[in-house]
């Protein structure tokens, strides 16, 4: 199989684009897809400060790498969740990338350790407050990334969600007709109220396989092991189903998710409606001032319950 662009030996075939690329042309393709995502969704400009949420996985490290190579001002935050050896390994991967690649672009890595603030790792916290680990993890990560972005005056927060993540999430929301979540699913979420950072997903045009290939080809040392807490999760099941469909009918995931975005855009400008809705229901948490629909935000409630149980 030869590269569609330069006719040298290809390293990856992309059935959904009816194309194959060598390493150089594939890197060009990936960078172009991210640049198109940033432009089409008005995510950020070259003079804005971006905070990338990194986990040590392929998507977030690839995102940091791509943004730096495209010339953006991107720092990163890593949240150490305290999941034993898994967190230790991912911490090492992120630190190595920051030193070997990001530092030469003048980028900074921020660190937050859950155990230092909460007194326990994510698994123990979830047990203490009787909530699923993945939901506890989601609440903590959303809270800490938003807090860092707001406190350190970043213009926007970027996450490594890719086409597979978004298509799987859409499938889950459609299967359960969760219309409220459907309305909030998009690659660019506005800073609707004070205390909320703008959130963007510059990788939404790229599949998980394309991002893994980018990481392998560019020698990005990421954590290949799956998070031990995610085993058997619904998201992984949805991804598996979508990938079996994609293998038989290339382009299925793209048609599904991009089609959803087109319909959403045709219906109403999401940024406006989300801002209006958020302003109507959100106000500062009485404890920490981050926006919440309740008197006390879910993060502060979680921390209070954890402290009460461990006391």
């Amino acid at each position: 199989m030869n590269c569609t662009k330069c006719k040298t030996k290809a390293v990856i075939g992309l059935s959904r684009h009816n194309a194959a690329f060598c390493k150089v042309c594939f890197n060009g393709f990936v960078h172009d897809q991210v640049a198109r995502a940033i432009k089409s969704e008005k995510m950020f400009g070259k003079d804005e400060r971006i905070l990338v949420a990194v986990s040590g996985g392929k998507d977030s490290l690839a995102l940091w790498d791509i943004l730096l190579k495209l010339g953006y001002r991107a720092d990163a935050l890593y949240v150490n969740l305290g999941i034993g050896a898994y967190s230790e390994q991912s911490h090492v991967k992120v630190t190595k990338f920051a030193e070997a690649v990001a530092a030469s672009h003048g980028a900074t890595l921020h660190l937050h350790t859950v155990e230092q603030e909460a007194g326990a790792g994510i698994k123990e916290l979830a047990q203490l407050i009787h909530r699923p680990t993945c939901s506890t993890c989601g609440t903590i990560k959303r809270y800490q990334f938003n807090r860092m972005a707001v406190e350190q005056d970043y213009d926007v927060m970027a996450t490594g969600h890719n086409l597979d993540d978004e298509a799987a999430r859409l499938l889950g929301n459609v299967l359960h007709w969760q219309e409220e979540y459907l309305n909030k699913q998009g690659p660019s979420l506005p800073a609707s109220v004070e205390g909320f950072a703008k959130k963007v997903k510059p990788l939404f045009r790229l599949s998980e396989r394309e991002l893994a290939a980018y990481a392998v080809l560019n020698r990005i040392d990421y954590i290949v092991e799956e998070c031990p807490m995610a085993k058997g999760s619904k998201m992984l099941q949805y991804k598996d189903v979508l990938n079996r469909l994609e293998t038989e009918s290339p382009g299925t995931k793209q048609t599904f998710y991009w089609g959803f975005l087109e319909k959403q855009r045709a219906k109403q400008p999401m940024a406006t409606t989300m801002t209006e809705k958020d302003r109507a229901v959100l106000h500062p948490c009485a404890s920490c001032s981050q926006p919440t629909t309740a008197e006390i935000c879910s993060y502060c409630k979680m921390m209070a319950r954890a402290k009460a149980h461990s006391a």
Partner: protein
Amino acid sequence: MQSSQRRPYHPPMQIQLSHPARTVEVKGPKKVKDLLRELNLPVEAHLVIKGDDLVTEDEMLYDWDQIEIRPVISGG
């Protein structure tokens, strides 16, 4: 017509897999896409790495090649 020369025996390909980490043996030569189909692994969810290089689905793999099939799916 059969060749009178006998090929030296070579053990089957050692394929390194993840989630969970394990090694399986498959007799080569075999194309990447046929190997994935034989192991019931969707192309869209995997990369095949020969030595240090990423290879496409039409690449022929031989018994002496070092092969890793890397899953690409993550997230809870």
